[in-house]
Every structure is written in C-alpha cells, then in structure tokens.
C-alpha cells in the first residue's frame, strides 16, 4: 500500500467538501496531535532520574527521534511502551474519526462511503 494517511485524509476531506486550505490545516494539526501523543508516552516512559542524562545526550545528537526512542526502549519496558503508544494513538484516531463522521454532510455520505469501502478492501 503506497497511499499515506495524509493522502487518505486529503481525499476524504476533499469529498466532504472541505476547502484545500482547511484540509491542509486539519491534516497538519492531526499529524501534530499524533506526534505529541507519541512524545508524551515516550517521555513518560523514561525514569525521572535518567532524564537529565538523556537530555545531555540529546544536546550532542542531531537525530533526537532515534536517540529518545532507543533510550526509552532501553530504560523502560519496551512491550509496555508499545502497548501504551498503540492505546493512546487509537484514542486520538477514534476521537478524530467520530468527529469526521458526525460532521459529514448527509448528501455526501454515499460517495464517501463508496470511497472508504473501496479503500478498506485494498490489500
């Protein structure tokens, strides 16, 4: 599957009649929400007494994502972190979808349903 979450949402919002400027803002804000969710879980997974040390490592690193992920997984319980990440991301996605579906105009529902159904069936 080559289509990204962004492409999927863009087409969906387009079919709902959302203008391009709002589409872009919605996707960016939602992406930022997912990223902040990940940050929250990762930072909370690092023990407080290790955070200063980790902060110093980050000063000397260009790829903070990699460093924090690696450290969080080493310092915390990897399975527990993944479980929490998935739980929290699922909550955010569900909230977003609930809102999207409730805002979907009645006259567009058939078209949108056909689009998402065809997407669901893709392998």
């Amino acid at each position, binding site marked *: 599957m080559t289509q990204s979450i962004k492409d999927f949402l863009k087409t969906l919002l387009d079919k709902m009649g959302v203008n391009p400027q709002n589409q872009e803002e919605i996707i960016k804000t939602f992406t*930022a929400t997912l990223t902040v969710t990940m940050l929250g879980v990762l930072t909370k997974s690092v023990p407080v007494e290790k955070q200063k040390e980790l*902060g110093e490592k980050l000063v000397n690193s260009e790829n903070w994502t990699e460093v924090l992920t690696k450290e969080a997984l080493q310092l915390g319980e990897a399975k527990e972190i993944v479980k929490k990440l998935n739980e929290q991301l699922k909550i955010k996605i569900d909230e977003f979808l609930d809102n999207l579906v409730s805002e979907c105009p009645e006259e567009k529902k058939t078209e949108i349903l056909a689009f998402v159904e065809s997407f669901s069936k893709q392998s």
Partner: protein
Amino acid sequence: MPESTAKPEATPQKDSVGERVLNFCHNQYNRTVDFAFGKQVYVPFTDRKVSRPELWLGLPVASAFITSAITEIPIVMLGVASKGQLFSQNPEVAIGLGLLAAAGGAGVGVATATGIEVLSGIRTMSEKVTAKLHQTGEKGIENVRAGAKSISRGAKIVGEFLANPAAKINEAIKRHNNRIDQNK
C-alpha cells in the same frame, strides 16, 4: 463584437464543515499537549512555571508549531535554547519539544523502532470510517421508519374520525356532559 468568454471569478464559499473539523482538531491538539507535557512547565532559565507550553514558547512559535507541522522554526528556537540551562532545568520538556521538532511528521522512526504499524493504521482507519458511516446511515433509516409509523398512526386516527364524524362528536359531547355532572 464577440461576447467575452471569460467566466466571473468564483467567490470563495464558506466552509463551515471544514471550520468545525479544524476547531475540533485544535482542541484535540491542545488536550494532547496537556497530556504530553503536563499542565505546568518551567519557563527556561528561570524557576517560574507557566500553565501552557504555548506560553513557554511564545504564541507565534506555538502557532507555527501547528501550522508548519514541526518545521525549521522550532528547531532554530531549540537550537538556541539547548545551549543554555534548559536541559538541566527541565529535560522532560526539552526532550519532548526537541523530538517534536526533529520528528517532522508522524514519527515513522518511532514507529519502526517500537513496532507500530503505521501503514496498516490507514486501512484500520478506513474500515472504521466505513463502519461508522454505515452505523449512522442505519440510524437515519430507523428514524425515517419511526417517522413513517407515527404518520400512519396519525392518519389512522384522522381516518376514523372522517369515517364516522357524528359518532365521534357525540362521544365527545357525552364525555363533556359526564364531567359536568361529576362536578355538580
């Protein structure tokens, strides 16, 4: 003289659906920031706490945070901040903001390292949308059915009255007279 074929420029239409979804997204983002960074954070280089990271960063940067989806602006800001005492004072905030600045998207690196299936998430998402749309569609049909039932019940009452108006009027007069008798 031939008529001009140029079409008048389309006036931008009000996008109330988009506005409402966007408003929801901003609220969701703010709630998530509370979850990720806590309600209170330190102001860098001081012992003072503020209630929101947006205040810590300053409003223009906070809005750039959202609108540019983590691009160069926060990185520049953090580049300056990280040379000072920020990390030693509040490494958690620094780590969070730094990762946000460095991630530049939905954290594919994080996903790879932790085993989150980002791509399969798209499919799950579309399945959920389908299910929810079906659900709301069925509710709509149920409402229409309930409405039709109520109309037919009303029609039945009206039909009974029209079929035998004299009897219905007599019944009503009788009921009224009975009430008067009871009150005497």
